[in-house]
């Protein structure tokens, strides 16, 4: 009982981490795309809870808000493009991906190894308030993220927003096939 109480956060972390891993395995192995998307939603939700465990409440809320909207669009694509009846007979698309998975595992392993060697994880013992500090004062995660984002990382932040804007305009341009493709290929049936 004492062990449970004193290590509650750690135990919770490992349970949630295991669930998150299970959820992400579900995303790539479930045959029904809607189930896979639901699994993805669950995984993101658990990651948000992991953020809360690290006292990063703002990140947790933003995680849920941003990804909930993102997966919503994914759902719409699935519903628009896949019919329910065709799902049952669809073969698992996992086997051709095994070489890709091996390469991916090697790359992720190399990434983790280099992170460990460079000491990225060495600051892990900074205490529960590390993500809530503004100028050495505990104000809260929202303030801390805002302060860092709009002072220290202002230029990368603005650059990223321009990149996102470009991607958005690009999507709209590609979506308007009547003006840009239609000129060369005539009417595109829809």
């Amino acid at each position, binding site marked *: 009982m004492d062990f449970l109480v004193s290590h509650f956060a750690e135990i919770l972390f490992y349970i949630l981490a295991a669930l998150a891993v299970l959820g992400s395995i579900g995303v790539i192995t479930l045959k*029904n795309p*809607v*189930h896979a998307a*639901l699994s993805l*939603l669950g995984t993101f939700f658990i990651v948000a809870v992991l953020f809360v465990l690290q006292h990063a*409440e*703002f990140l*947790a*809320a*933003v995680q*849920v*808000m941003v990804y*909930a*909207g993102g*997966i*919503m669009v994914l*759902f*719409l694509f699935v*519903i628009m493009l896949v019919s*329910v*009846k065709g799902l049952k007979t669809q073969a698992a698309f996992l086997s051709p991906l095994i070489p890709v998975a091996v390469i991916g595992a090697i790359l992720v392993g190399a990434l983790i190894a280099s992170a460990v060697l460079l000491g990225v994880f060495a600051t892990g013992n900074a205490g529960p308030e590390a993500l809530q500090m503004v100028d050495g004062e505990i104000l*809260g*995660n*929202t303030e801390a993220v805002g302060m860092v984002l709009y002072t220290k990382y202002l230029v990368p932040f603005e650059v990223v927003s321009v990149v996102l804007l470009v991607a958005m305009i690009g999507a709209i341009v590609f979506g308007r096939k009547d003006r840009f493709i239609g000129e060369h290929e005539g009417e595109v049936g829809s």
Partner: protein
Amino acid sequence: MPEPILQLLLIPLIKIVVLLVVVLLIVAYLTYAERKILAYMQVRLGPNRVGPKGWLQPVADGLKLFVKEDLVPGGAEKLVFMIAPAIVMVPALVMFAVIPFGEPFQIAGMTVTPYLADINIALLFILGVSSLGVFGIILGGWSSNNKFSLMGGLRSAAQMVSYEIPMGFAVASAVLMAGTLSMVGIVEAQRAAHIWFFLPGILGFGIYWVCGVAETNRNPFDLPEAEAELVAGFHTEYSGMKFALFYLAEYANMMIVSAMAVVLFCGGWLPPFPNLLAGLWALPVLAWIPGAFWFLAKMSFFLFCYIWFRGTFPRYRFDQLMNVGWKWLFPLSLANVMLVALGVLLLKG
């Protein structure tokens, strides 16, 4: 029982039970109020058979829905069909955890807070959790294997995703004025400013309320369940208790939107007219009225507005709905945030 366990587990558990019971009771009688008020607006009597003046009608409805046969359509995606009502209902109830119904008070030497949690991201929590509810609606519509359900679900998704954006900006204008994301902090900021935020933020308040009505799929924005076109929309194939969950979640969401309007723009649990009647509120008789009374009174007003709208406005067409959302509310809310930010900057330095 040792003290910390009492503090950590027992008191929150009691609060959760009380909160759930009260919320579900209000939800049940909100359906009764809606039928009664609509009836009077249409010069009818409304439910008047079960109990005196129909007071027991919600109980009878609940019993009926419990014992009804629970149908699952043949071609339905069973698992998703089963969990969709839960995905709608759970977020609707979870959001009540951060709604402050009143100010902390003393009882038997203990300080009791009439809310479950005062977290510093309460508003983001509500916005995030509320965005999960739409999944239940679209999944319910999709898994029913019914054209009308699917259309209703898709409409609902488009509508809720569109109106979430101006709503977020309207909420942001109140946050700018308060300088905090905590619900309790926002009410305290209105007490300190001696003014409710709907006066300086009248535009934001209006946008918030329109978007709030649209987010809950209520008249005049109830296209996802437009009965003339879609039978009953996303819950066409649902029956019994699963249908009841969709139905209750809609009313719980109405309560959340009303409670948010009260907290963000109408001073939460503070008594009305803080400036004009400051001397009056100092009177011991009136000061004795608990804050929760004012909170519930204001919330009831907004809930009445919901029903009033339903009795008054015709339904939008879908293209009109999208035009209002994207061409009017979105630019207006963006301009409003900039105006409020400028005002806050000039006034507070």
